[in-house]
């Protein structure tokens, strides 16, 4: 049933979406949405949606209350909005609106004009689904189709001449009963795995990790909206690599040298063991400040990339975060090694403001 309020609600949500789209860059560079993530939705703070009017500044107004307590006792609870000097920007009032992750992904997609991803390997994996489409003469009572049962009884009574239009009583018998029945359908399933790799050597500071964190939140959001079944693996490396959980991935701080090949090797092993490339869409993302330990290791990286990781993956993404210590050499090496190869996407992220363009670079190919 369509409720009277639905069009107005929809309109409100449209406006909310519009506001989020307008401020997307701001939300992305601040990274404030990540902390507000619930299970399936994000609580987005929206300025300027309230309708303004002439009203009193609450702080100065005070008022009358009720209850015990001496003069000067704090009322606790409610926080005051800032004083008059805080009000230089119109509409500082903030309303929080819940937006589902799918919606957020859609907004991101619209804003960045991201193409939908064509999953590969859809033919090879199938899952089954039950659909209640048919009618059967046997079945459990819980699935009995009331209307069809009576229809059947009516038909039978008319045929046998037991139906009296003056006194239309219809009594279904056991044979009249009809039940909903299901069919098992086989549907192709698209699986994807995201493998995040991050350099956690001494040269990657907190700001660099924050950038990686924000970037991966949005990558997650977009890719989740594109695949039904998505897995995530996190790999950190300095001179050696290991698989960790998401929390460790974003919070750990190590020091030491950098051997990128260790991460690539581990990624290769993870894929071999868990995610056969014929059945999985594979998205490795590697973030580093571009410092690697010696040319030998770099050439090892290139050979793993060209022989395993790149042929297996939909795209291989390398994001280079600028840090005060890193030389930034690795991206140049990659560029040299694979000129014009569209399976490899490179992006340099110098500051938070560039996350948006970097997302566009990574996801803009629709692969």
């Amino acid at each position, binding site marked *: *049933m369509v*409720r*009277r*309020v639905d*069009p*107005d*609600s*929809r*309109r*409100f*949500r*449209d*406006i909310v979406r519009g506001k989020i789209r307008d401020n997307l860059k701001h939300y992305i560079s601040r990274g404030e949405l990540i902390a507000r993530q619930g299970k399936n939705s994000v609580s987005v703070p929206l300025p300027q*949606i309230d*309708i*303004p*009017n*002439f*009203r*009193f*500044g*609450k*702080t*100065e*107004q*005070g*008022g*009358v*209350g*009720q*209850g*015990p*307590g*001496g*003069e*000067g*006792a*704090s*009322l*606790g*609870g*409610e926080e*005051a909005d800032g*004083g*008059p000097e805080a*009000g*230089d*920007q*119109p*509409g*500082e*009032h903030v*309303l929080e*609106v*819940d937006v589902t992750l799918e919606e957020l992904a859609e907004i991101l997609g619209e804003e960045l004009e991201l193409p939908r991803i064509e999953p590969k390997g859809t033919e090879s994996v199938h899952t089954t689904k039950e659909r209640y489409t048919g009618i059967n003469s046997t079945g459990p009572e819980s699935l009995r189709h009331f209307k069809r049962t009576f229809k059947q009884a009516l038909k039978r009574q008319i045929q046998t001449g037991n139906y009296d239009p003056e006194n239309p009583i219809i009594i279904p018998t056991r044979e009249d009963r009809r039940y909903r029945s299901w069919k098992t359908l086989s549907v192709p399933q698209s699986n994807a795995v995201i493998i995040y790799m991050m350099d956690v050597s001494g040269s990657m500071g907190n700001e660099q990790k924050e950038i990686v964190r924000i970037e991966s939140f949005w990558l997650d959001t977009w890719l989740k909206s594109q695949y039904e079944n998505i897995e995530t693996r996190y790999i950190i490396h300095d001179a050696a690599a290991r698989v960790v959980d998401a929390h460790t991935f974003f919070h750990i701080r190590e020091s030491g040298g950098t051997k990128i090949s260790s991460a690539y090797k581990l990624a290769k092993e993870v894929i071999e063991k868990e995610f056969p490339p014929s059945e999985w869409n594979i998205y490795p993302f590697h973030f580093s400040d571009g410092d690697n330990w010696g040319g030998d290791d770099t050439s090892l990286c290139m050979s793993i990339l060209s022989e395993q990781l790149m042929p297996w993956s939909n795209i291989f993404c390398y994001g280079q975060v600028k840090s005060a210590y890193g030389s930034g050499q690795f991206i140049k090496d990659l560029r040299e090694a694979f000129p014009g190869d569209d399976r490899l996407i490179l992006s340099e992220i110098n500051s938070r403001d560039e996350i948006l363009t970097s997302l566009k670079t990574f996801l803009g190919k629709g692969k």
Partner: protein
Amino acid sequence: MFEQRTLTPRLEELRREIRGYAVEYGLDFFEVIFEMVDYDEMNMIASYGGFPTRYPHWRFGMQFEELQKSYSYGLSKIYELVINTDPCYAYLMRSNPEVDQKLVMAHVYGHSDFFKHNYWFSKTNRQMVDTTANHAVKVRRHIDRYGLEEVEQFIEVCLSLENMIDPHAPYFGEYSKQSEESLEEERLAIHGTKFKTKPFMEEFVNPPEVLKEERRKRLKELEREERFPAKPQRDVLKFLIENAPLRRWQRDILQIIRDEAYYFAPQGMTKIMNEGWASYWHSKIMTTRALEASEVIDYADHHSGTMGTRPGVLNPYKVGIELFRDIEERWNTGRFGPEYDACDDYRARREWNRETGLGREKIFEVRKIYNDITFIDEFLTQDFCDRSELFTYKFDRHSGNYVIESREFKAIKDKLLDSLANLGRPIIHVDDGNFKNRGDMHLTHEYHGVPLKLDYARATLENLHRIWSRGVHLETQVDGKKKLLSFNGSRHEEKVLG
């Protein structure tokens, strides 16, 4: 499946019972039509201010989402919703237990009696359901013709100004216009008053400097009269409808917003009284008549929930019901009048009882002629303040918290009256529609110690500009200084006035 909204036979039986008690107690109400709704229907009706037939606008969708969210998190639940119309419509939540339904019914009969008899409701449109539906039809027609966004945005602009009405205007008829004749007389009198005297005394009885000064004043007054508007006008919406360069459909929408704002204003003017009165009666009817023994605990739980207080917020239900009870008690025992007021013997006052027995009669009278301001002004007593532990609070800059400021009777009363004045909104009037002689609009905020929220004020000026389409100026006080906030269509300006 569509569910029936009519009462179940059992509830209908209860309704008759409760209605009977209400009539016995002397309540005289508009007949009440109860409907049963689910929580989302309830939230929907509430988000339209009780009128699901209102014009479409996303603001209602926003309110609905907020109510839904707060209901699903268990933060709030609307128990009762009653509409001031004749007959009165009231909504019951389908999921409520029987005892709650009884309580709500008794409460609603209280409201309906108040709607019918309180003077401040006497000018409201009792066919508002039809009127809002008509408004909606008009708005939809404008949307069809001029496009959703265009109309929607204009409504938003109007809503931003919707509180710029004069809530008292309906009770004093149209502006008392001076007749042309008397204006003419004044025009003739600008030469100042001369006293009759002998010629040689002329210079002393009618000194020329005084006459000159008087003439100057008169001329100034005259100039003032020819200004536009002649007198400062608080019904800014009316001024805009009559004078702003609007297209016909825009004028129509502004008129709709204004009509609805006036309809809702009395509810703001009598919040404490109205809720107090309804609570008084649900309590009276339930505890003396309708309550079954098995329901006492649930009733007490619900009632105390309604009467609960939080620091920093005055619960109108609680203050209202207690003031009505206090009045009843005082008029029953004769604790009023000069003799009682003059008595300063604590003990004599406490035991005062003249057995006047006028309480019931008095509260019926009070519900007829008072509004919140006059109600508080007249019946809030020192004793009541002490007993109810009322206090004033203020913002403390050092701790960043609200703290209790005072428990002094006068301070409490002043603060309370202040917060009720003009429905708790700033009083702003338009006093020049041709400011600087270039068609700008000049508004003045009557400053009584509480400054405006500046960011909102600026955004509202922008909206005002969209209607007036020439510069708009607002005189107010900021940080203790008189300032003129201006918006000329592209830029905000702020000027300190001498």
